[in-house]
């Protein structure tokens, strides 16, 4: 931690602890010390660039029992650089739990892949810088550029950068547009959508509620978000509403209402291409596009692990209302399949 620049705008007492008084355990400390020595190329490049910003960013920063790859405590921002293993389902579940805990402590978590950090360092740094500057309370930004003064309301809330994908990853493809109206850049629709693109599905955290087509659209007068439940009795619906409310409130959209509509009924055809890919990567066979009309006799499914189509249905009902249980007859692994609906 010796890297803190002498001209850091915080009193020294701020440097050794997390702001709301959370102390970090000895377990996290030693883990932090260990991983500082084992940085990946991406992490090292990113760190070299980030420390030059002089924004009081720490690397391998312990928060509670967790260790953030990078953290800016004053902006309540955590930056994670993920290796390939973060795409594994088990790992993603742990990451989701960790992110949820950090969020509950007021931190925003943004993830980049190791590859992005290594090959597109400048872009990543620029995004992080923008997020930090937007998030800092204007007063404490004394000496920083005036952009901070415009605050959260006038500009898109932080993280709303146009090409920030659902989890903060830089994405080459533009996010799928919401169903109804787009009102031009910076309109309510765009700003709200960029917040919603960060809300994961509580049951399948690999995809966002926007990927799933749960968001029907954003409307003005009165400002409201229309959402639709996937299944009539899906218990996640309540959780999803709560998560949207929280995300909107935190981003300064307290005035935006959430309205549930059930007609026209949700269909798996509304899952975006990006969402389908994420499901597959997560180990869930996505529903084929356009299959909703002949939903019941879902004949084939591709094994998300070995891509074999030599598979069979074990049960039409799975761990959540939206999934069926299948088994691959080649690699013999069971897998979830999103029901066509």
């Amino acid at each position, binding site marked *: 931690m010796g890297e803190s620049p002498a001209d850091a705008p915080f009193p020294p007492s701020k440097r050794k602890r997390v702001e709301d008084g959370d102390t970090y355990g000895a377990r996290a400390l030693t883990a932090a010390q260990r991983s500082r020595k084992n940085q990946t190329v991406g992490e090292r490049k990113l760190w070299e660039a980030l420390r030059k910003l002089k924004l009081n960013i720490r690397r391998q920063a312990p928060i509670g029992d967790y260790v953030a790859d990078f953290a800016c405590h004053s902006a309540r921002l955590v930056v994670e650089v993920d290796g390939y293993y973060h795409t594994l389902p088990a790992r993603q579940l742990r990451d989701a739990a960790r992110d949820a805990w950090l969020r509950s402590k007021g931190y925003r978590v943004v993830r980049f892949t190791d590859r992005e950090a290594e090959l597109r360092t400048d872009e990543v740094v620029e995004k992080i810088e923008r997020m930090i500057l937007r998030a800092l309370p204007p007063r404490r930004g004394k000496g920083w550029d005036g952009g901070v003064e415009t605050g959260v309301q006038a500009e898109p809330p932080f993280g709303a950068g146009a090409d920030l994908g659902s989890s903060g990853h830089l994405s080459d493809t533009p996010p799928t547009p919401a169903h109804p109206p787009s009102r031009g850049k910076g309109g309510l629709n765009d700003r709200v959508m960029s917040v919603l693109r960060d809300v994961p599905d509580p049951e399948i955290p690999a995809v966002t509620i926007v990927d799933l087509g749960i968001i029907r659209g954003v409307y003005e007068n009165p400002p409201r978000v229309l959402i639709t439940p996937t*299944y009539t*009795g899906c218990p996640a619906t309540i959780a999803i509403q709560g998560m949207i409310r929280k995300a909107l409130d935190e981003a300064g959209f307290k005035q935006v209402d959430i309205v549930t509509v059930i007609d026209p*009924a*949700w269909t798996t055809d509304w899952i975006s291409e990006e969402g389908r890919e994420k499901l597959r990567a997560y180990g869930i066979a996505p529903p084929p596009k356009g299959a909703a009309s002949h939903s*019941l006799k879902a004949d084939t499914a591709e094994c998300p692990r070995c891509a074999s189509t030599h598979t069979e249905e074990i049960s039409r009902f799975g761990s959540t209302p939206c999934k069926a249980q299948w088994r691959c007859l080649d690699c013999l692994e069971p897998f979830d399949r999103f029901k066509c609906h």
Partner: protein
Amino acid sequence: MSTPAFETALRLGDDALILGQRLGEWCGHAPTLEIDLALANLGLDLIGQAQHFLGYAGELEGAGRDADRLAFHRDVLDFRNCLLVEQPNGDFAQTIARQFLFSTWQELLFGELAGSRDESIAGVAKKAVKEVAYHASFASDWVVRLGDGTEESRSRMVDGLGWMWRFTGELFGEDRKAGDRGFGIDLAALRPAWDARIDSVLAEAGLDRPAPHRPTGGGRDGHHSEHLGHLLAQMQFLQRTYPDAVW
């Protein structure tokens, strides 16, 4: 107070609520894990329907009762579900018989209600009919497996259908005087399509259609079997003991 629209929403909601509760009783007790999950899934769909229909009923009534209030603060006489759904689970074959007869009917009913002039009812029906198609198909598959299975499974399936059959007349309003204002559609008109589907599954299962039975009914008027009281005692226990307790 009791308008036809309110009555319709209440009947639809109560059917779904009571059968959902019955299916929930299987949770942790089903013959295999897959069936356990399947029955719980069905129950969940039904409770979702109940939430929508009862919520709408409460709106129509305008007396400040929401879906939870209607579900947990009414007594037997005020429930409007059909007798079929309140029948005890019995063995697995009996549960399947009940589901088969009910879901086949509910799928046809929702198909019809999807075109209802009442947009709230139509909206739920349009959404739920896709789920109910899964229920009907699940139950039909099991009727065939049990009916066309061993001596034991076959005789249980026959018994299950034999018991449940007497409650099917009520689904089509056959137990009532003409001129019932309830669902806003001609229930009797659903019968031919229902008969055709039931017969084709029974044929595949190698089972005979149970002998005709004088329809047993009254559920739509609040005349229920003893079973409903026991079910409510369990379902409503918390709200009866700690009124208005919230999660």
